């Protein structure tokens, strides 16, 4: 029956890892701003070389 005890320890340690991850993410301001991150990822990085030549009427 020591298998159950091993499993208990294993499951608890996995849970502790997740608790640690949660505390780490709160500490690193992951929950402070819910607006920016999902939008920031959608912005394209422009090709660097065509910056100087932008026509005004480009829409």
């Amino acid at each position, binding site marked *: *029956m020591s298998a*159950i*005890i091993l499993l*208990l320890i294993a*499951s*608890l340690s996995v*849970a*502790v890892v*997740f*608790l640690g991850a*949660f*505390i780490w993410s*709160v*500490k690193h301001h992951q*929950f*402070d*701003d*819910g*607006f*920016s991150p999902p*939008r*920031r990822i959608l*912005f*394209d990085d*422009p090709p660097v070389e*065509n*910056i100087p030549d*932008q026509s*005004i*009427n*480009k*829409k």
Partner: protein
Amino acid sequence: MATTTSIKLNCYHCGDPCPSTSITLGEKTFCCEGCRTVFQLLDHSGLCEYYQLNDKPGTPRNDVGYKDKFAFLEDEKIAARFITFRGDQETHACFYLPQIHCSSCLFLLENLHRLHPGVITSRVNFEAKEVSIVFNQGKISMRQLADLLSSTGYEPYISLRDLGHERPAVDRGNIYRLGVAGFCFANIMLLSFPEYLGLEGSEIYLRGWFRTLNVLLSLPVFFYSAQPFYRAAWKGLRQRFLNIDAPIVLAIFVTFGRSLYEVLSGTGSGYFDSMTGIVFFMLAGRILQDRTHRRLSFERDYTSYFPIAVTVSQGDKEVSRALPDVRCGDTLVIHHGELVPADGIITKGQGFIDYSFVTGESLPVTKYMGELVYAGGRQTGAAMEVLVVKEVAQSYLTSLWNRQEDKKEEHSFVHLLSRRFTYIVLAIAACTAIYWWSHDPHRIAAAVTAVLIVACPCALLLSSTFTNGNILRILGHNGLYLRNARAIENIAATTHIVFDKTGTLTMPGSQDLEYQGIPLTPVQQKAVALLAGQSTHPLSRALAQHFGKTDPCRIPGFREVKGQGLEGWIDGNHLALGSYAFVTGSVIDEPYTCVYVGWNHRFLGYFQFGNHYREGIGTLMQGAGASCRLSLLSGDNDRERPRLQALMGGGAHILFSQTPEDKANYVRKLQGRGEKVMMVGDGLNDAIALRQSDTGVAIAAGGNNFTPASHAILDASRLHRLPLFIRYCRMGEKIILTSFILSILYNIIGLSFAVKGNLSPLIAAILMPASSLSILLVTYGSATRAAKYLGFVTAVPAEKDHAPA
């Protein structure tokens, strides 16, 4: 583009209507030079994605700062307030930009490095409306950085408050506690299952393992997660008040003590899952309720209205000086759009001072050289110089804040309800003890503790915190931002609403014009526009604006008599605009603000100026008048009385020429009669009354960054929905009561087991989450349904969420 064919054009940058079609670039039309400049800048830097992410994302550039506006950032002492880190190669600075409102803002502000090579990176905190910029101090200075931000249309908002106050640290303690409680609760529940399902003979030795682990897992919850409840209960007890936290703490203690005893004595498995469960749910509710709007400040005083530094004229040069260092005898240069920071005498130039925020007067006041100007007014004319006669800290305006009002501590109805509830529970526990004492004394302890465990008013706390949290959230989506959950109760109890006029019911800075007399011919209209366009007087400017822009030209014989009027010859006709005396030569009593028109020395008629009311004032008054008594207190003169009386109905009290103290006294008088007063105002002249009232609602218009201290902030465009908000808060109170009755039913079921002394951990383990979850669903669901019924937005707000700052 289709819009070019329509007559009404909107600015490509900010979306405001364009007064003329003269400012264009390619196919795009702009409302002002400021907007066009921003567009050009972004276009040259290849940042036009800004305009593609959202339609017309810019903010109107009404108050474009003058050249040296941020000169004060060269002062190390002031600049250090905005610097968060300084290294050899790079400096980190943080600015508050109230204009941030959409993903375009995010895009532009995080691409600042493409506008200036000195910027390394920038990052926006959207909730706080702040941008943190990492820059190379060798390539760009703080002042240039602020100028760079201004040039993109995001001018940092810097006020005197930034000089004195430290940033409050964000408290994340309860979130950690919630995480720990959730972790322990879930694991204890898992470990309790085997015992509930029954362990067979060969597995019985595992029971010790499970129980030990449960005890260990419950310790962090008992000693760490439940702390906020201990603190609140202790605070209540010290004030000799039994609040809702007291019986909850009692229940937590009893449950923990009895469970520990059972496990140690080997008589049972205890109620650890129930205990950690209630702590977890109650913490979640409390966090939901206390999650106030972080980007809003409800505690503002005059310092966040005043500038951080002013321009001081020293001989022939102008220097920037921090406001607290300004002394009597200094000469200040007040530019267009700037605030007069201290009482002083005009020594150069002319003042057109807008006192609407301070006194409630709707029209700007003209002040000439040698006249006294009071702090708090905003210069709307050209630059002037002012000799300081009173230090900033001693002016009339700041004295408004140095008063202490009588603060009374009232207790929420949830606490009062729980107190009664607690007495009943204690009575039942006593009866149970007496019963078992006479029948089977061995079971007294078991039965009494079971009663206390089951009857914990956690359901009441849950229902109130979750309902309030949901209501706060929904109201926030709809433009009413409350300071805390107490405000909901106070709004629901409102019996009397007191309105301010200027800036609250009226739109600041805009006037209605009405012409009375012999109709003007088109030639005459053009002449009026031309002549009025020559003057900078507020009334002339309003007139010129009314007739549309004209090209400036020289008018022969033009003469402006200060405080009287203007005259000149236009195409061979003589035109005079001004007071009755100026135009006709005879004096009459002028009850209204009028500009009289004389054409070739003949009196034609007059323009009457009236306040421009916000939309939906009629519906607001009707809706509010149905459930509350109404009053109006204005610092302005009584020109608008007939119109307001008609709007508000005959029963409303309307008082004019009220000082800030008068307003507060009026509110106090109403409260003395037992009324619950809601004060709706916007300016500094309402500040004392807002604090005195039971619910002070500050009105925030789009561009305005400042609201006085209050209990709630209401978006000006949603003012007409105020009656609905009151109704919604009343519904909220009913929802809490209903769910409380539901929780009492659960308690009766639980108690029926408990008084008999056979509350098994299994029953407790089922009853606790079942009751908590069902109450959660009922309160959350009904609060959302009630909001939908009233036509509120309940989901995440649209991207363009113009929350006031």
